């Protein structure tokens, strides 16, 4: 009886017809199938690694790594390493000596721009300072402190020395500080002035607008998806074509048609004036502001809400609603207690999808956003075009982190396995 209840001993003793242990045979048989299955997904894995993981990893690396100064100013790097606690308000002569020798070397190696650009990220105005310094460096004689300050008094700014110290490390959190509205001042990193703070505000605004867009999409998509799921096949297919139509039109075309429709001399305003609802002078401003951004983006993102909702609603049998009604629930109670909870996976998936897409959108807000419809992605795009990739990467990484946070929250609250994208 003891052997019979011990499955391990039992199976270990079993062999196949030709005498091999059963376990080995099974493992071999399955290994082959597994290998084949794996080979099938290898192209996908490679594709994902090359087009997704590597670029994102590269971006993340970029956000805290920059060797523009560290690689072109070896003497300064050495000096900063030896004197981590120097007084930036009054750096000693050796520091200036190292700086001048590095400037001379930059002039020869043509790395002035690289080094200056790196420092300019945290201390604006330094690229031309470095160029001037590098041009003069080979003619300077000790004492270097006086000599360099004579070239440009800016060289004595404590903020500049702090910036160079920070840039002497290849790895830095500086870009994240800038992306959180910190400024390098003569006394170190501090919160930027009222007129300069923009990133955190835009992060907040981006999330707020994305939230509003998500909510509007949900409000509009819910009845449409319900109709799609309940109409007879022929009609629902037609409706589905209308839903998908935006996917077949270029994003730019759609955005510009919203401009034509909503601008002050646009169709919507003309109509309202013609109907006498507003006067010629009282034309509404619906474009080039936050309203325009919200309207256009809600339209652009609507299908991403409809499709997951539809796929969830389609498989909810009508008998649930009937059951609830027969059990005594009013139609509102039926909707609230029985139908709505069952569409939650679709609502969650659609909202997540729309929200994440909205957070990263920049073409539409750039075209219709005007002054107050700008989102954080517009600044990422700006810094990309202005060659400050590290700052762009840092903002993007913060955006990524907040979306991952959202995912995590979602997983905690709803459970990621309940998502249904369609």
């Amino acid at each position, binding site marked *: 009886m003891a052997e019979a209840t011990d499955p391990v001993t039992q199976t270990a003793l079993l062999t196949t017809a030709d005498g091999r242990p059963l376990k080995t045979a099974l493992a071999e048989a399955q290994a082959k199938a597994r290998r084949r299955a794996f080979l099938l997904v290898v192209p996908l894995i490679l594709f994902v690694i090359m087009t997704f993981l590597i670029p994102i990893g590269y971006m993340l690396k970029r956000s805290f790594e920059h060797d523009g100064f560290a690689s072109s100013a070896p003497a300064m790097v050495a000096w900063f390493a030896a004197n981590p606690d120097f007084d930036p308000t009054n750096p000693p002569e050796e520091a200036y000596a190292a700086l001048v020798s590095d400037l001379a070397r930059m002039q020869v190696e043509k790395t002035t721009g690289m080094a200056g650009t790196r420092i300019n990220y945290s201390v604006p105005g330094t690229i031309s300072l470095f160029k001037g310094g590098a041009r003069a460096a080979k003619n300077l004689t000790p004492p270097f402190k006086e000599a360099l300050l004579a070239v440009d008094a800016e060289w004595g700014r404590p903020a500049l020395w702090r910036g160079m110290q920070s840039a002497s490390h290849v790895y830095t959190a500086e870009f994240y500080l800038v992306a959180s509205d910190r400024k390098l001042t003569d006394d170190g990193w501090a919160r930027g002035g009222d007129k300069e703070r923009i990133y955190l505000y835009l992060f907040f605004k981006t999330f707020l607008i994305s939230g509003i867009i998500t909510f509007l999409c949900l409000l509009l998509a819910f009845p449409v998806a319900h109709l799609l799921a309940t109409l007879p096949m022929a009609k629902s297919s037609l409706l589905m074509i209308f839903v998908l139509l935006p996917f077949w039109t270029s994003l730019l075309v759609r955005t510009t048609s919203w401009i034509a429709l909503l601008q002050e001399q646009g169709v919507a305003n003309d109509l309202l004036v013609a109907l006498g609802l507003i006067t010629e002078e009282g034309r509404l401003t619906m474009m080039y502001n936050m309203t325009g951004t919200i309207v256009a983006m809600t339209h652009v993102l609507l299908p991403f809400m409809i499709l997951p909702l539809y796929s969830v609603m389609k498989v909810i049998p009508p*008998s*649930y609603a*009937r*059951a609830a009604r027969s*059990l005594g*629930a*009013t139609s509102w109670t039926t909707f609230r207690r029985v139908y709505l909870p069952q569409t*939650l996976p679709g609502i969650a998936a659609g909202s997540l999808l729309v929200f994440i897409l909205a957070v990263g959108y920049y073409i539409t807000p750039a075209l219709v956003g005007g002054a107050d419809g700008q989102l954080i992605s517009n600044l990422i795009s700006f810094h990309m075009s202005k060659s400050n990739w590290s700052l762009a990467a840092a903002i993007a990484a913060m955006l990524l982190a907040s979306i991952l946070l959202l995912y995590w929250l979602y997983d905690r609250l709803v459970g990621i396995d309940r998502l249904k994208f369609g």
Partner: protein
Amino acid sequence: MAAETRNDAFVAFERVQKSYDGVTLVVKDLNLSIGKGEFLTMLGPSGSGKTTCLMMLAGFETATNGEIRLDGQPINQVPPHKRGIGMVFQNYALFPHMTVGENLAFPLEVRGMGKSDRDDKVKRALDMVQMFSFINRRPAQLSGGQQQRIALARALVFDPKLVLMDEPLGALDKQLREHMQFEIKHLHERLGITVVYVTHDQGEALTMSDRVAVFNDGRIQQLATPSDLYERPENSFVAQFIGENNKLPGTIEELSGDKALVRLQTGELIDATPVNVKQKGAATLVSIRPERVEFKPEMMPPGAHMIDAEVLEIIYMGDILRAVLRVAGSDEFVMKMRNTLGQTKLVPGQKIKVGWHPQDARALDP
């Protein structure tokens, strides 16, 4: 059960018609009264209108014409949630996002019942179907049979006077289905509720019902007790739909009261009971149950006609033997014999004579 004579009908359909497209009627002039405490089954092939009738009763479809009354009150204009009718669906329709307990509490909650009363009733309803230990499970964690019981308990938990069941056992395997048939039947008897049951399974209908309404083509073809339905079908549709039947076409040779002599197309004369044939010379379809066919002359009443038959095939089915015969030009005539110790062995090719009691041969519309 003499429901036909009851005039204090609990549920009544009066001249009810239903059309979806305004062109064809799916329910044509339905008149039906169901007594209090009765178990009535609507039986019929798909598209016969039985489910539509049930949906009209539940309030999910509106009658195009006619009146439906529940306990004396017209309910055409009453929304489903105010009808107080319990319903069991084919796919159970248990709310997947609620536990078993929450599912059962739902109808009580929407009626504004307090928590302790609710818990009480839920417990009693679950005990009734022996499922109390599953109260915290979700429907997805239950087997089909268990879900069926919960659906049943949920339809009963708020003490409805009437319970509708729409093919509730259709998704279960045979054994479980038979078991559940008894369980539902016993619940019905114990609680004394009125049940309207829809199925396309005639076995289920015969086993469970007090009366069965056979639907076809939007009409009730016959409304009768299971035994009447089986033994005394009133038209050839019912005869063919319920159980197995041999059909012999012919014409009425003689007609006198409850006796008729039918000449088959091949010339033989047989005895039959006239059901819905009116006159001599009319075409008819004689229907005979296979288990009522005899081939031993000593089993036949004196003077009964017997006709020639040839054994084509013997099928061994365990409890019975099934003989396929050639009778009156038909190769599909079936005779069932009990598989007893002394049963005469027939072999294919053997020539025999077969006959039946005249009351077992029913001369119906062609």
